[in-house]
């Protein structure tokens, strides 16, 4: 920012050694070299998520108020970007097994960060939420949703915990400390260990010809560096005009794409084109998913196919990006096509 509102500010990025956190640290260092970046994370820096050179690292469990308070009091940050959180892996996404862990980190962790930040005179608090706050309630389709859509109190453990934490963040926005929440959709990019690897794995498992449902359901995906840009823009906003204070924003590539085509494009990057296509009606897949779940329950193994994953694959979920565009000035810099190319280059 030309007015220097971000100059020589101290910025905490919690969860900063992870996929999103590291991208935020890079984006911030790139745009505001004058900022001091302090990373809080449970795990030390990881080679797959590169960090800028001059960052400070503090090992902290956000779920422990004592640790969080001590760290924030020493660091004395101006801005907190809170991305630390648990995203359950696919096998646990639809169950309740991890509920306590997820709530402890995602909700209690956020509350600790918020309270400690308020005590230390932090001016801007940016929370990395998720579009799942709305879309994890899998009973309904979500075409072109905007921020007026409600968050759901009963969905999946991840969506529920994120919605609860986001509500805490937004209600705490005041003149002393402005807060806002960003809700990225499914993320991908270099270092992504979930989405692209699992789509890639379908080639080896001969799963690529199968299409569940009509294949026309649109999804949003977000390249990780775009979501990092959005965080930097949100920080700038909260340090200047504060028009984003107390607000939530859906962040995505603004290029809704069918889930099928996203997979096809990734497979094409690896030189694979499905030799033929088999359409499976949603109802049949749903029943098959149920059978798999029973088998999983009986044998205590894990499965990719479940009723939840069938619903995920057939879901209509994309958001209108207007609010983030008008309030934050967010526009995705890296399109899906370039993003897929960049991500697959790393994977190969």
């Amino acid at each position, binding site marked *: 920012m030309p007015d220097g509102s971000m100059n020589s500010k101290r910025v905490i990025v919690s969860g900063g050694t992870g996929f999103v956190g590291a991208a935020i640290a890079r984006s911030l260092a790139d745009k505001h070299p004058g900022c001091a970046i302090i990373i809080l994370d449970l795990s030390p820096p990881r080679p797959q998520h590169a960090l800028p050179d001059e960052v400070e690292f503090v090992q902290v469990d956000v779920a422990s108020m004592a640790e969080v308070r001590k760290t924030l009091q020493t660091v004395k940050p101006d801005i907190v970007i809170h991305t630390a959180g648990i995203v359950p892996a696919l096998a646990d996404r639809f169950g309740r097994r991890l509920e306590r862990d997820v709530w402890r980190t995602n909700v209690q962790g956020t509350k600790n960060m918020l309270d400690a930040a308020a005590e230390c005179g932090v001016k801007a608090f940016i929370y990395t939420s998720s579009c799942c706050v709305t879309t994890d*309630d899998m009973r*309904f*389709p*979500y*075409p*072109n*949703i*905007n921020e*007026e*859509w*409600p*968050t*759901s*109190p009963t969905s999946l453990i991840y969506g529920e915990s994120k919605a609860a934490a986001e509500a805490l963040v937004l209600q705490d926005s005041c003149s002393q400390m402005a807060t806002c929440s960003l809700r990225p959709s499914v993320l991908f990019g270099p270092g992504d260990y979930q989405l692209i690897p699992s789509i890639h794995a379908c080639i080896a498992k001969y799963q690529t010809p199968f299409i569940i449902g009509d294949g*026309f359901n*649109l999804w949003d995906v977000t390249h990780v560096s775009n979501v990092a840009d959005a965080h930097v823009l949100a920080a700038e906003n909260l340090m200047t005009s504060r028009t984003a204070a107390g607000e939530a924003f859906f962040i995505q590539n603004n*290029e*809704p*794409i*069918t889930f099928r*085509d996203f997979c*096809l*494009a990734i*497979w*094409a990057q690896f030189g694979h*084109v*499905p030799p033929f296509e088999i359409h499976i009606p949603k109802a049949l897949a749903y029943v098959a998913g149920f059978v798999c779940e029973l088998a999983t329950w009986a044998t205590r193994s894990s499965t990719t196919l479940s009723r939840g994953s069938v619903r995920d694959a057939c879901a209509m979920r*994309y958001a*209108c990006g207007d609010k983030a565009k008008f309030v934050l000035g967010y526009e995705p810099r890296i*399109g*899906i*096509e370039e993003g*897929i190319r960049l991500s697959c280059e790393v994977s190969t």
Partner: protein
Amino acid sequence: MGFIGNAIYFAFHPIQLRSIIQWKVWHNPPHERNEKNDTETQKICYKFLDQTSRSFSAVIKELHPELLLPVTVFYLVLRGLDTIEDDTSIPLETKEPLLRNFKDFLTQDGWNFTGNRPEEKDRELLVQFQSIIVEFKNMKPAYQAIVKDITDKMGNGMADYCVKAATEDASVKTVEEYDLYCYYVAGLVGEGLTRLFVEAEFGNPALLKRPELQKSMGLFLQKTNIIRDIREDFDDERRFWPKEIWSKHVDNFEDLFKPEHKEAALNCNSEMILNALEHVEECLFYLAGLREQSVFNFCAIPQSMAIATLELCFRNYAVFERNVKITKGDACELMVQSTQNLNVLCETFRRLTRAIHKKNTPKDPNFLKISIVCGKIEKFIETIFPTQKAEDAQRRVKGELSRAELEKRKAEADSKSDVFFLMAIMGVIIFLVAGVMMVAAWFLGARFDLAWQEIRSGNFRPPAITQKEL
């Protein structure tokens, strides 16, 4: 195709026939033209309109009376320009000033042009041009000014092109040049029509502030024609596909037509269609700004025909071999869908976009771009006509029901009690009939007591009767 041919075709394609009948029977023009009051020169204008364009004359003639004649005259004037430009027998030194000064001829009483070669198909229009001039001068001054301005721009654009073609290579090289060419032949028409609509207060004046919208309307139609007519143009030695696009797929333009380059030709075709599809959002946006039914129909019909044509041409190798066209039945169905409202039209666009999307293949280098442009069209349609609203979602989360749902639930409860009542009656009847039958059987000597005993002792079947006992 003769009558028998048609009969056989429609016997196997009843839906096509149904669409044609539907259009013929149910379509009521928003404005009927009263031919009796036409003056002699007006009659000449409409005669030329019918002769020069089969597709446009029908929609033009249904326009609101306020715009009927201005649009007709506008169309014929541009057709006149086109006829001069197309005629290769006119030398450049005659042609250039004719094109550049054409706007001034519009106000010269009695002007006509007899210099076209005899085989030029619209020659007669310029020979009798004095009649069009009469009607031009009868129009409101505001309309005259618009038509004149566009004629001026288009005449000069055509003249520039002719000069360039004579002195250097005029083939379309970059995508920018391609857009510019389409702008001169179609974008300008869109501009003129938009100004006429707004002047007549049938269009939202905001349309004039967003010139890219009407430009897209023209470009989308023109690009569709260029994609569809690739074979015909090639045979006539005209090339409109920009080198910037085709050179990515083949080395020489001619290779597109060689069977050994079939895959490359299909990929080139899909990239051209991708380029055209990028205009769709702006076209729908433009259509949302029209306020009068006949004007909406006039604009919407060609647009839906264009998207249907693109759907037909997408990755269809036949376009490199012959002229492909949408069937008459499909055209009638599209006309029915284009003459109602924007919502119905958007559904048609969504359907055809999905059909294109379905034919997209990951073997195509532009696979992802095509997929994304289709997604964007769908998102845009969802923006103007949301299928789900935030308020409904709010209510759902709170567990409340909307009024429609409440009514539905009540109706369901009513019908449920009806069903129960009927079932109860049925049950009573079955009980009575069964009772009567059992009593009758008892009178005739049936031993229910023995049967009951056998069942109690576990013999559910009558004892097996062996051959011997018989």
